C-alpha cells in the first residue's frame, strides 16, 4: 500500500454517492412527493398520475444481474432515446424507463425486446430473482447463483410476461449459508448447503488463523483446540456436532468446508416481507437436498415450477405462497406437493421449541 496518491486525494475521498437530486428525471423532481395514484397499463407498464395532472409511464425490463459495460451503455442509449437520459434500477435489479410521451411506449418495448431485455414483471407476476454472485466471484459459493437464476427465470418466463399469478412471486438464491440477499423471507428460496464438517488444514490454521475466536464462533460448540507441537496449535472438529454452517471457514481459511461431492442445494418456501394482510414471514425448508447440477440444475427448476403451478391452482387471489400454505396447513402442502417430510425439517436450533406444534390441531394430511 505504499502507492502514491494524487495531491487532492484527501479532499476528494468521503464524497459519498452521487446526489440523487441530480439523477431524477425533471418530471419526478416537479412532482416529488405529489404523486396521486398509479394504474397497470399492460405487462411491464405502469402509469403514474400526479396531483398536478402530469402523467408518467414506467416500463420495466429484465436485465442480467452481471452486466458488461457494453450492455450498460446499450441501456443508456435506450434511455437517451426514450426517457430523456434518465433511468432507474429497481430494488430487485430490473431496469426501469421513465416515459412521459405515451406514444413512445410501444417503440421502447420493441427496442428493449429486440435487444434481449424482455419487458414485464409488474403486478402479480414473477419478479426478478434476487441472487448472489456464486462461482463468478465468491470464495464461499457452493453453487452458482447467477447460473441457477438464469435457469429458473427461463422456466418461469411466462409469468414475467403475464401478471396473472395469485400474487407476486419473489424468488431468491444464496450460494451459501451466509445468505447474502437475505433470502430468508422469500416466496421461494434456494440455499447452498454443506453436508460434511470442515476438513482442518493444520498448516493453514496454525499459521493464519485466530484460533480462539474461530472456536468461539462455532454456534454448536463443535470445535476445540488441538496441540500440534510446541507452540503450534490447530483446531479439532467434533463431526457429530457440526451442522456445516461454514462460519469457521468464514473466519479461518484452514477450516476447509467445501466438499463438491456432498455439498448440495436446499429449497425453502413461504416467506414474505410486506405487512400487507399478514406480517412478514420466514421461508421454511421443504427440501433439504437437491443435487448441485450445473449448468442448469434441472432438478431444482422442475421443483420450482411444480410449486408455482400448485400455488396457481390452489391459492385464493392475493395469497402469497406462504399465506396460502398457512391457510391450508403445512401437512396439507407436503401432501399436495408430494414432498417427503423428515427429521431435517424440524428445527434443532436456538428457538426450536417455538416451532413445535403445541396443540392437537392438525390435519391428517
Amino acid at each position, binding site marked *: 500500500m505504499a502507492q502514491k496518491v494524487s495531491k487532492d486525494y484527501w479532499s476528494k475521498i468521503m464524497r459519498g454517492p452521487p446526489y440523487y437530486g*441530480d439523477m431524477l428525471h425533471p418530471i419526478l423532481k416537479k412532482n416529488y412527493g405529489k404523486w396521486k395514484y398509479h394504474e397497470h397499463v399492460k405487462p411491464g407498464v405502469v402509469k403514474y398520475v400526479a396531483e398536478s395532472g402530469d402523467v408518467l409511464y414506467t416500463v420495466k425490463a429484465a*436485465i442480467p444481474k452481471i452486466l458488461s*459495460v457494453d450492455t450498460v451503455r446499450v441501456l443508456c442509449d435506450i434511455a437517451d432515446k426514450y426517457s430523456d437520459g*434518465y433511468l432507474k434500477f429497481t430494488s430487485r435489479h430490473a431496469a426501469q424507463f421513465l416515459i412521459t410521451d405515451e406514444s413512445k411506449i410501444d417503440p421502447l418495448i420493441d427496442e428493449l425486446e429486440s435487444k434481449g431485455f424482455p419487458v414485464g414483471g409488474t403486478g402479480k407476476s414473477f419478479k426478478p430473482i434476487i441472487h448472489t454472485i456464486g462461482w463468478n466471484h465468491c470464495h464461499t459459493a457452493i453453487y452458482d447463483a447467477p447460473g441457477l437464476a438464469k435457469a429458473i427465470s427461463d422456466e418461469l418466463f411466462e409469468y414475467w410476461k403475464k401478471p396473472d399469478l395469485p400474487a407476486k412471486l419473489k424468488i431468491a438464491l444464496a450460494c451459501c449459508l451466509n445468505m447474502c440477499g437475505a433470502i430468508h423471507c422469500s416466496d421461494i428460496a434456494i440455499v447452498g448447503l454443506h453436508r460434511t464438517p470442515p476438513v482442518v488444514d493444520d498448516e493453514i490454521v496454525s499459521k493464519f488463523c485466530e484460533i480462539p475466536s474461530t472456536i468461539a464462533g462455532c454456534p454448536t460448540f463443535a470445535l476445540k483446540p488441538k496441540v500440534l507441537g510446541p507452540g503450534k496449535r490447530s483446531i479439532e472438529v467434533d463431526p457429530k456436532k457440526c451442522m456445516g454452517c461454514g462460519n469457521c471457514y468464514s473466519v479461518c481459511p484452514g477450516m476447509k468446508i467445501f466438499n463438491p461431492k456432498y455439498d448440495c442445494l436446499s429449497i425453502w418456501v413461504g416467506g414474505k416481507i410486506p*405487512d400487507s394482510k399478514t406480517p412478514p414471514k420466514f421461508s421454511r425448508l421443504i427440501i433439504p437436498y437437491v443435487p448441485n447440477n450445473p449448468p442448469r440444475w434441472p432438478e431444482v427448476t422442475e421443483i420450482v415450477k411444480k410449486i408455482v403451478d400448485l400455488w396457481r391452482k390452489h391459492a385464493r387471489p392475493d395469497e402469497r405462497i406462504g399465506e396460502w400454505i398457512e391457510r391450508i396447513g403445512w401437512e396439507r402442502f407436503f401432501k399436495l406437493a408430494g414432498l417427503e417430510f423428515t427429521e431435517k425439517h424440524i428445527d434443532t436450533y436456538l428457538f426450536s421449541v417455538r416451532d413445535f406444534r403445541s396443540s392437537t390441531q392438525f390435519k391428517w394430511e
Partner: protein
Amino acid sequence: MSLELNIDELKKELEKKPWLIEELKKGPWPGFITEYERMAARKEITKRMMCQLELSYRNRTTLWKHGGAVTVKGYGGGVIGRYSMIPEIGPPSGSHTFRVNQPAGWFYKTDKLRAICEVWEKYGSGLMNLHGSTGDIILLGVDSPEVQECFENLLDVGYDLGGSGSVLRSLSCCKGPALCEWALIDTLDLYHDLTMTYQDYLHRPHWPYKFKIKISGCPNDCVAAKGRADLAVIGTWRDEIQIDQEEVRNYVKSGLDIEHIVKNCPTKAMSWDGNELKIDNKECVRCMYCINKMPKALKPGKDRGATLLLGGKATILHTAFIGWVIVPFMKIEKPYKELKELLEKMWDWWDEHGRYRERIGELVYRLGMNEFLRAVGLPAVPQMVWHPRNNPYIFWRPEELE
C-alpha cells in the same frame, strides 16, 4: 477443499467443447455469459475469469480463494480482496471487488452511468453487478496494482465506495416520493443525509460487525428492510386513511371484489354497505392491503412518520431475525436529529458490549431488550412485542425496589 487441483488437467478440460456455461445462453431470460464474452474479447482478466467460471461449472466448486485485505488509502472497507485458486488459468494476481455506493433509489442520469463504465472498462474486467444485494454498484474483478488508481478515477467521476467489513454498510431506500404516491417519508433525502453524515462510519471499520440501514416509504417495504436491515425505517401514519368514496364505487363498478378485500383486512376494520366504505381507523394496523388494492380511492393518512425496527439480519449465527419494533412512531424531518441521536446511542452501546461478529440484534437477544432500551433511552411500549413475556424471569434493579 477436498478437491485436488491439477492445472494441466484443468487446462485440458477447457479444451473440451462446448463449454458447460454456454448452456446458459439458451432461453428467453437475459443471460450473463454473453456479458463475459463481450468483455473477454478485449480484456485478459475477463477471459481468465471466464475460464475459471467454466472450470467451476465442471468441478462443481468455487475456485476463488479466501480473500486477503485489499484497501484504498484512508479507507478500511469498500474493496473485497479476491484471488484465484488457479492463478495459472484464472486472474493471476487478484480480481478484487469494488463496492461503489449507489445514488439513492438507484436513479441515474445516463451520463453518470456512462462515466463509471468508462473507468471500469479502463481498470477492471468491465463486468459489474447492477446492483448488489445491499444496493451497491458492484465492480467485479480488478487486479491488485490498479486498485488505488481505479478508485481515484471513480472519485473523479463523482462516485465513492460503499461499505464492507465491520462498518456501516451502504444504505438503501425505495423510490419513495420521487415516484410513489404512498411514500410517507422522504426516503431519498433521508438516505442521502444519513450516508453523508456517517461517511466516517461507512468507510472506517469501527464496530463489532456490520450495520445495515434500509428505508422504505411505507409498510409494503419495497427494499425488504424488515428482513435484512439492522435498522429498518418504515414510513407510516397515525391518523385516518383518506377515502374517496366516489373512486371506491368506480372500482366496484369496474369489477373489483370489494367483499374479498373487506374480508382480508387483518383486523376487520373495514365495512362496505354497497355504497360506502367505512374504515374504523383505531382498529386499522396500517398493513396497506386495502390501499394497495385501490390506489385511486384510498390514501394513507396525513400525520406521517416512521416505525423503526431493529435487528433484521440473515441466518449467521443466531438464525435469521426479522426486525422488531423499537419505535412505533417517529417524525422523520430534516435534519433528522431524533433519528441520528438514537442511531448514535445504539452504536455506542453495541460498540461497547458487542462481541466480535455479533450483530446488534444478537446483542439485544443476549443482553435483553431491557438493557437495550435503557441504554438508548427508549420507553418500553406494547407495540414492541406480539405479547408480553410468559416467564417470571424478571430483572429488578436495586433502585426499583422501594
